[in-house]
């Protein structure tokens, strides 16, 4: 569209180029055929006339006259043919007669023999400044053969042909231009749905991502494009929604502790207090600030993970060993809650980032420990699945209502909003597990029924 733009040719130009080529070629071919037909027609006419003249001359010669008698007969022989010239020689090459007009001896030998001539053999020869077509023939008489050269003026036909060529060229040019204009108009009209599509797309912006194109209002060729575009906008809308929810969640998560910090500080400062009270307040602020720090760190980590900025340091990892070491880490906590930890099953080594896998499994374990009743067991089960190696962390406890399951891995999602602030994490633990699984090309799943909840983590084996 834009001149000087180095992109591919515009569709209009492309199609017009092809149309011009096709129309030009076909017009040129028809012009050539028409011209050839006309020329051939004239040549046939010329040849027929030359043939008639030759026959008349031959007949005159057959009357065997001599001298003035012969000349009179010959001059009469072609009296009906305007613009026809001839000359006659006897067998010995002696000049017998020549009609008034150009001297045909100059063109001797240049004309084809009438006995074998075809229309296309007739060629224009310049004789005495005239354009002539002619033939050579023989005329039989008792006294011997005569050689006859007959020619006729080609000027008239040439003039006509010239004019015909010019008008033919004009007609062709006109037809070509008209066809191209029509083609351009057609293409332009044909592209109207594209412009319509583009206008519709322009309506869609950040605040109006719910708008969709209507494929039914478009020609068949564009429906698929519109459908793909709708799909893309759908995905964008989802991502955008998630992002804006995340932002508002962040704002909310930050606002609550900030409000409490501000209020607490203002209240403390409103009158003089003991050193002990100030110290208490500073401790409490510090705890809140640490929570905020952890939340910011987790959110930054998730943001980096979203942008694929986490670089995995993959090593060969024996999951059994990792789980045993994690059990050692959680040993005190589990004992404190009177919960046992067991591991079963086996899995081949995987290539994964040790620190991240530990972090993910640690989040799953602390989550399971939090919801397991005293005296029960958290089971970790390793297995080889089609999708890779699966680590399932299973704990007994109240089932999680089905409607929450798909959302558990979302950021800041909590089954019970009231529990928001008394728990230990900041509501990002499971999102981090999901990001870690996905950064390894794996996935997370959750199922809850029959008094058991299972969170699993699958990582592909290469």
């Amino acid at each position: 569209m834009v001149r000087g733009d180095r992109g591919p040719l515009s569709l209009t130009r492309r199609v017009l180029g092809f149309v011009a080529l096709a129309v030009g070629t076909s017009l040129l071919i028809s012009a050539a055929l028409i011209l050839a037909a006309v020329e051939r027609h004239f040549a046939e006419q010329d040849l027929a006339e030359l043939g008639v003249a030759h026959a008349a001359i031959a007949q005159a010669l057959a009357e065997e006259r001599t001298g003035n008698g012969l000349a009179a007969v010959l001059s009469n022989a072609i009296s009906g043919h305007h613009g026809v010239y001839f000359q006659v020689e006897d067998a010995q090459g002696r000049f017998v007669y020549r009609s008034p007009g150009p001297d045909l001896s100059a063109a001797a030998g240049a004309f084809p023999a009438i006995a074998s001539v075809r229309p296309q053999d007739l060629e224009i020869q310049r004789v005495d400044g005239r354009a002539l077509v002619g033939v050579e023939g023989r005329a039989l008489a008792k006294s011997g053969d005569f050689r006859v050269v007959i020619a006729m003026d080609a000027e008239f036909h040439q003039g006509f042909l010239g004019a015909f060529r010019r008008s033919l060229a004009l007609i062709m040019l006109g037809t070509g231009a008209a066809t191209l204009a029509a083609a351009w108009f057609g293409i332009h009209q044909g592209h109207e749905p594209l412009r319509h599509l583009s206008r519709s797309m322009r309506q869609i912006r950040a605040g109006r991502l719910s708008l969709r194109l209507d494929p039914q209002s478009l020609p068949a060729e564009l429906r698929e494009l519109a459908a793909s575009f709708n799909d893309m906008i759908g995905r964008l809308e989802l991502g955008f929604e998630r992002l804006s929810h995340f932002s508002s969640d962040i704002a909310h998560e930050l606002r609550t502790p900030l409000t409490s910090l501000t209020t607490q500080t203002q209240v403390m400062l409103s009158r003089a207090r003991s050193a002990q009270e100030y110290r208490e307040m500073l401790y409490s602020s510090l705890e809140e600030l640490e929570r905020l720090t952890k939340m910011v760190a987790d959110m930054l980590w998730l943001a980096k993970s979203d942008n694929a900025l986490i670089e995995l340091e993959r090593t060969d990892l024996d999951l059994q060993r990792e789980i045993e070491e994690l059990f050692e880490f959680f040993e005190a906590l589990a004992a404190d809650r009177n919960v046992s930890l067991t591991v079963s099953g086996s899995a081949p080594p995987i290539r994964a980032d040790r620190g991240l896998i530990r972090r993910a499994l640690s989040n799953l374990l602390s989550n399971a420990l939090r919801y397991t009743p005293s005296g029960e067991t958290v089971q970790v089960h390793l297995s080889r699945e089609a999708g890779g190696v699966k680590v399932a962390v299973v704990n007994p406890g109240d089932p999680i209502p089905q409607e929450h399951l798909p959302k558990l891995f979302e950021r800041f999602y909590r089954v019970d909003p009231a529990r928001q602030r008394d728990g230990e994490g900041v509501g990002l633990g499971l999102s981090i597990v999901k990001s870690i699984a996905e950064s390894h090309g794996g996935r997370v799943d959750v199922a809850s029924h029959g008094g058991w909840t299972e969170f699993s983590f699958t990582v592909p084996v290469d």
Partner: protein
Amino acid sequence: MRLLIVEDDRRTGDYLRQGLAEAGFTVMLARNGLDGHHLAVSETFDLVIMDVMLPDVDGWRVVRALRDAGKQVPVLFLTARDRVEDRVKGLELGGDDYLVKPFAFAELLARVRTLLRRGAAPVMADRLQVADLCLDLPRRRATRAGKRIALSQKEFALLELLVRHQGEVLPRSLIASQVWDMNFDSDSNVIDVAIRRLRAKIDDDFEPKLIHTVRGMGYRLDAEEADGAG
């Protein structure tokens, strides 16, 4: 021990200086890269704490200039950005450690002490003792007031860490990393529970109490109650 802090943020710089001075170090503070470089070259320090993002010359360049000038002083980098390439750059330049903002002061203090200890000959004692608590390292046995205390492997490792850093506040993240090799902030209060259980074995039946909670910072093992902070 003389420390040099190069930090342009006024509040952070002031509090770092105050905190480290109160922890017993002699502290100099430079608020930009040129002053920092000048001080580091003209005076002798045991450790430089270097902010990476400085208004005039960035921390990397200051440290490179120091190394070029033949100064082998250990450097602890502080940065707001945690990117792998930064980390690699810091280590290539002979930075000795790397701390991402925001960090806990207790964490910084622990790292500073570790870096300062690095050079010094490690204590190769077989026995560690604090008050009447005694650790027999080769046999992994602990006794208090002559009584044998049964500890799990990790409980012993935790106690050993606390004893080796006697008198220092150890942040939870450092404990998790040193004892269990878990280098992330856990979602749960694992460390608190582990300390509580250790304390039940070490301190409950004995006096004086050795393991102290330093609120908002971490844990400290000491024979004496610290001034007001515990």
